[in-house]
């Protein structure tokens, strides 16, 4: 029984005072819209009547009717402005309540962050990092100890030597004698003379 009542209460609380205000404004807007519809219908009708009166030659009456029409058109414009205002107001309230929710969210987030920072003090972090560093070094020592037990420096050298040998054996044989290169052509190429001479000098110098 108790839970049933409390549930009902909870449901009721979902509509806030702002919601009620917004509803009232929107209802007002609807009423203005309905009013506009009415005036619009009136205008259309009166236009027809005025036309008919003119046809019948009742100019004065038609003029009077058009005057009334003009007045109603002004009213229509005024209601347009009012609708605009009412809608703006409703939007403002809506937006303000959204802003309020954003604020609440930020505040909650902030509190949560603070709470977490309380648990996670700077000193603790430093201490943990230090301990981690120590542990890493300790591990390295263990690694060295274990690895050093198997291979001495001499062994390392032997390994390197063997590696060298294998690499050499795998390479193709290079002939030891000088290789005779083909002669350089002696035909003169007039434009390229200068660089050629320099090249020869370079060869001579080497």
């Amino acid at each position, binding site marked *: 029984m108790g839970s049933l009542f409390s549930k009902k209460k909870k*449901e009721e609380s*979902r*509509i806030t005072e702002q*919601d*009620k205000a*917004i*509803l009232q404004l*929107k*209802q007002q*807007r*609807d009423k203005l819209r*309905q009013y506009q519809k009415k005036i619009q219908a009136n205008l259309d009708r009166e236009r027809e009547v005025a036309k008919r009166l003119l046809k019948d030659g009742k100019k004065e009456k038609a003029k009077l009717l058009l005057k009334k029409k003009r007045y109603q058109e002004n009213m229509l414009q005024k209601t347009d402005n009012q609708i605009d205002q009412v809608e703006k107001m409703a939007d403002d309230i*809506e937006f303000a309540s959204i802003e309020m929710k954003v604020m609440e969210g930020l505040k909650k987030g902030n509190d949560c962050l603070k709470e977490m920072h309380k648990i996670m003090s700077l000193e603790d972090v430093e201490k943990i990092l230090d301990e981690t560093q120590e542990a890493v070094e300790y591990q390295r020592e263990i690694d060295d100890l274990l690895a050093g037990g198997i291979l001495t420096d001499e062994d390392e050298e032997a390994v390197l030597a063997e590696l060298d040998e294998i690499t050499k054996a795998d390479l193709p044989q290079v002939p030891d004698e000088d290789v005779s290169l083909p002669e350089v052509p002696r035909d003169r190429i007039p434009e390229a003379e200068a660089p050629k001479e320099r090249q020869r000098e370079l060869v001579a110098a080497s």
Partner: protein
Amino acid sequence: MAEFQWPWQYNFPPFFTIQPNKDTQAKQLEAWCLLVLSYCRHRRQYSLDVTDAQDSPLFHNKKIDRKLPLDAVYTVLEELRKKGNIEWTDPKKRNRCLIMWRTPEEWGKIIYQWVTSNGMNNTVCTTYELVNGDDTTSQEFHGMESWLLTRALQTLQLERKAELMGSEGVKFF
């Protein structure tokens, strides 16, 4: 509005006489129920006056000069009532009934879909803007009668997707 597509039975004279054979009758009633609902849906009709309906094209096919007799009309309507598609507004006289070619739950879903796709959750709406507003002219629920709208919204309220604010407003969640 497009022309209503009558089912083939509509031009079949025996369709307008309740069949004595039980199996045939069941099928016939089924077809009539479907016809009534789709006809009302096409015309966006939310209530039915029995006397008016009897003379309307729904129960009276002038082309083949056949008319569903009054007692048969009641049989069909009672069948629809059993299915939950209609409700008498005057159960004693049985002259007027409300028609629901969609159940309030289905309507609720359609409205809620529209609300969600327009990002209107957490927004207050007037019932007037839902059924008569300029934003919903293309929606199926535009022009819906208020009793049905209220019921549809009540189903949403049960699911905690909406909350009615009197009879004139609703807040969606």
